[in-house]
């Protein structure tokens, strides 16, 4: 019997994340602080946790910090390698945010270094776990990242792949058709679509560079992390 090994479609981080808020009495200031923390967690902690979940093979991961509790559960049939690929992007994004923010821990944050080393890393170890090295590639000038092909096949850019489009990490930029099965090309980072490195209809190989994404400006990121009101509207921060 032939088992078709089609790539699973990569879902965005928000779809596979369940956040929970414990019920407590809160003041308006506390609520604002909580919202800011949640917004940050969506940007930093959650992607990092997804990365860890992806590399460990664990089914569930839970982190508690004061009144906040975050639990991630892997879909029952999700292939680990796909998680890992999304995870690599997410980790890179988290690191980048750290750099742009300056020294970590400067503001009240639930992103603690002590939380990150969960399970073995993605590198080749004695366990002979295959690694997906299609990590985020930064563009030549270091101000962006490159969306790469998830499969070998024919590239079909979508509307979001047009230069100038504002995208968030995980947004669909197009597809690569592998024997009639579309595999999603996703933005590796938040930012603005720049140069296209392949044309629609091009035959592309796995891991081939397709679309350059310029990082969102540092000012925007800083605003989002300091002012709770600047939370991007497309992030669901509700309990």
């Amino acid at each position, binding site marked *: 019997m032939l088992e078709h090994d089609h790539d699973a479609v990569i879902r965005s981080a928000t779809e596979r994340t369940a956040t929970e808020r414990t019920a407590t009495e809160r003041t308006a200031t506390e609520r604002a602080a909580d919202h800011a923390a949640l917004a940050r967690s969506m940007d930093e902690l959650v992607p990092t946790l997804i990365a860890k979940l992806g590399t460990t093979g664990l089914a569930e991961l839970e982190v508690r910090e004061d009144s906040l509790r975050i639990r991630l559960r892997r879909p029952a049939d999700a292939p680990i390698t796909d998680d890992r690929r999304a995870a690599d992007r997410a980790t890179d994004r988290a690191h980048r945010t750290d750099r742009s923010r300056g020294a970590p821990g400067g503001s009240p944050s639930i992103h603690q270094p002590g939380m990150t080393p969960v399970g073995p890393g993605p590198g080749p170890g004695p366990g002979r776990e295959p*690694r997906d090295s299609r990590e985020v590639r930064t563009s030549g000038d270091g101000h962006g990242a490159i969306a790469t092909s998830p*499969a070998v096949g024919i590239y079909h850019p979508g509307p979001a792949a047009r230069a100038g489009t504002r995208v968030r990490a995980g947004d669909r930029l197009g597809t690569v058709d592998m024997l009639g099965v579309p595999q999603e090309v996703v933005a590796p980072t938040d930012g603005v679509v720049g140069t296209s490195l392949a044309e629609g209809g091009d035959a592309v190989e796995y891991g081939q560079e397709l679309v350059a994404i310029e990082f969102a400006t540092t000012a925007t990121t800083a605003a989002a992390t300091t002012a709770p009101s600047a939370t991007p509207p497309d992030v669901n921060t509700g309990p």
Partner: protein
Amino acid sequence: MFRKILIANRGEIALRILRACRVLGIEAVVAYSEADRDSLAVQLADEAICIGPADAKRSYLSAPAVISAAMITGSDAIHPGYGFLSEDDGFAEVVAAHGLTFIGPPAAVLERFASKAGTRELFAGHGLPTIPGSEGMLRDEMHALGEAERIGYPVLIKPSAGGGGKGMRMVRTPRELEGVLRVCRSEAKAAFGDDSLYLEKWLDENRHVEIQVVVDKYGHGVHLGERDCSVQRRHQKIIEEAPTPALPPSSRVELAERAIKAAVAAGYENLGTLEFLVDASGAFYFIEINCRIQVEHPVTEMLTGIDLVALQIRIAAGEPLGLTQADIPQRGHAIEFRINAEDALHDFRPGAGTIERYNAPGGPGVRFDSHAYAGYEVPPYYDSLLGKLVVWGPTREAAIARGRAALDELVIEGVVTNTPIHRALLASKPFLEGHFTTNLLDRIGSAAFLAGEERAS
């Protein structure tokens, strides 16, 4: 003939197929996983295309990725090598459905020989003796115990879809059988996606002798003699040689002739190998057929002078064999040593890392098929075969002498290899006298074997 072939494999066999393509004037595209980006086959290929990540399930074992790569590179055939998708009839069928040629037996032929138990019955019907075994697949524990009783202990539990020793266990008592049946089932399920098991009578002292056959699309077939693969460790071959020291010339010819006759009669097509067990009395029993190019094919190439991979490609392209049995010489003696990245001193633990120093042996009658080079990083994701040292000599003694010299010349540093076991084997009485049996190494234990060699030298 094909214009462009996609090589859907890695390591030394990708390189071997690439070389055959060169000789035939066919363009070669090497399909590779991310872990093999720096492989020699990728560097030497006319074209190379990355088909997926290191995980073989998403690259070398992914039928859609391999076929998609063949389509977009304009290849007209796919060579699957050995392992991976090489004997997958479903894959062969999808390849054909996309207007491409699968280099190997057509899907219908692969399907006919897919079940080991079914194949045994088929060949028994065409005059090959088979090892006494269970009637069909084992239904449950009661059935297994009953069949084992009928056959007589010891018995070997084998997965129908198997290969490479996975899911295989020898048991000597009903209690042992009960104990491991479930383990074998889950191993078989995990390794092959099929948990069908059957039983075979276990021959305590046996040799593994296999016959290389080739049959064209028009039902014309020849055999290319035998290979003796009795030096094994846990059902994995370490050394292969031809001719077999186990049988006199008349028996060898008889075995080969019966094998090719049965293969043709059963409708086999393309290159294939019929494996037999030979007991102490010289009686032989058919065990299975391998519907692919085999790791040890160079042994036959050294004796016959025939490029088996090129022949395989020509047959797949629909060319007539163009050979009769009389055209196939069997000259001298050849021995192949599998050089694996394994630590012989530590239970053959697989190794990985970067090859720091490298020297391939040479000289008359010495061939080294390897994808290794100085600076090559051996990835940890795949099998541990680093290369095949094949030596030829006019006599077995001459071949052994060349083997010793070549093993001394071989330098692979930075990655552990199993060369100590080869040196020990070449110094051991059972090998030198040609009395090696398939379970000898496991019975003595590799560590004890190596220690014995140290005392002797």
